[in-house]
């Protein structure tokens, strides 16, 4: 298949789930800009591996599995080997929403990658447990455990921050 034809096929398949994919990428990243980069990276990888997609109906789960894998890799050895950028923090424009989002993003990044992915996809993007399990190549039970563990850890983090500062957690930043 020629590049042009492959590109058109990819964009056609991507169109229905592009917004959800970008939002998920942003929520898994330290900033919107990093999330957008992650998404475009996933599009490039999907383009290169499109020949491996057997059924178009499986595109959504297939694309999200690429996105999640790249997200893990970005956070994993790749960043351990390279110095972290100072600008990884969210650039806040000091609205209450961005401050709250920045706090939550930091808290999410303290979670294990699989737990973060499961929580973000379930709570923020409304994916079903079965869809998350397919994207993570895991069982439904494992995904449920991850979500519940992630919520528990987030609650603990919020509670300890609230105790430490004796004020609502988002005020900390």
């Amino acid at each position: 298949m020629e590049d042009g034809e492959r590109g058109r096929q990819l964009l056609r398949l991507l169109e229905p789930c592009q917004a959800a994919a970008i939002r998920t990428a942003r929520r898994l990243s330290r900033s919107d800009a990093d999330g957008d980069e992650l998404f475009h990276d996933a599009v490039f990888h999907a383009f290169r591996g499109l020949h491996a997609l057997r059924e178009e109906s499986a595109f959504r789960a297939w694309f999200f599995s690429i996105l999640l894998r790249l997200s893990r890799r970005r956070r994993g050895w790749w960043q351990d080997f390279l110095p972290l950028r100072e600008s990884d923090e969210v650039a806040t424009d000091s609205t209450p929403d961005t401050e709250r989002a920045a706090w939550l993003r930091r808290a999410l990044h303290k979670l294990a990658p699989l737990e973060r992915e499961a929580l973000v996809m379930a709570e923020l993007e409304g994916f079903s447990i079965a869809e998350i399990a397919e994207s993570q190549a895991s069982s439904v039970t494992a995904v449920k455990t991850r979500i519940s563990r992630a919520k528990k850890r987030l609650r603990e983090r919020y509670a300890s921050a609230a105790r430490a500062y004796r004020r609502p957690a988002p005020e900390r930043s």
Partner: protein
Amino acid sequence: MFKPKLEQDGDAMHNSAQMELATDDQLSRDFEALRRVTGERLPSLLETERRLHERLRASSVSKRKLLVAGCVAAACSTALAAPLLVELSAPKVDAPTSPTAAPDRGVAAPAATQPSDADHPSSAKPTATQLARAKRDALRREIVRHVPPVNAAVAPTAAAPAPARAPLPTDLTNKMGPGREKLVAFLNDEFSPLLAECVEQAEARAPTQAGMFFIGIETLAYEELGAVVEVAAPTERNQLADPLFIECVRESAFTLIIPPPLTNGQEKFEVNGFFGARPTSGE
């Protein structure tokens, strides 16, 4: 005496429940905020298409740059130019470059899943990987003339692939120094993406496996010519034993040419990372 204790316990429970409610409330408000913030100004499909075209264009440029870099390295030494010309004018169809080598940066698909030029006997045109390997071997021969490697007897070349080696020792820690920083920077920029491709191919072959890989790298450098990777082999701690992965790493490493100026001699590094799902605590 008993009652106050109960009251204290009751207060504690009440506070704890209040705290939990407040935390849940806070959490759901923050989720809502993150939902709003990250849902704004999403790139359009047109923007995605434009970025994809840019990446593809950049890929083909970087593929060309790989070939040019080899020629520049060759041009820095007149002695090097002759063997290179010989290698280039007589390309081998059955060149020893493995089909499992990571694709050159930007090649459309992993080499292991796509037929290469070498698969078509009618096409005598060497692949970019084969050319890069040939240039690396020519450069290595020149470097060895000036700086013989300690283990010259087993040093791999295209003509004589290295025999199976015992795993490298595990003490290849990343000792930074003035002579090593440039090598580390180069490996980060040029080798890591190739390594990532090898990991991806290994993950695709066995999606359920997970753990850490540890690759020992030894470079051989001559200050005026540059450096090549002399050894790329798993260390004792390596958990990704897939032979195709090891071969992919080796073949990819043996296409690298590190430009001068450098410090003479051999250096050792260890590159490690996760493959498959990154392990989480308690899973």
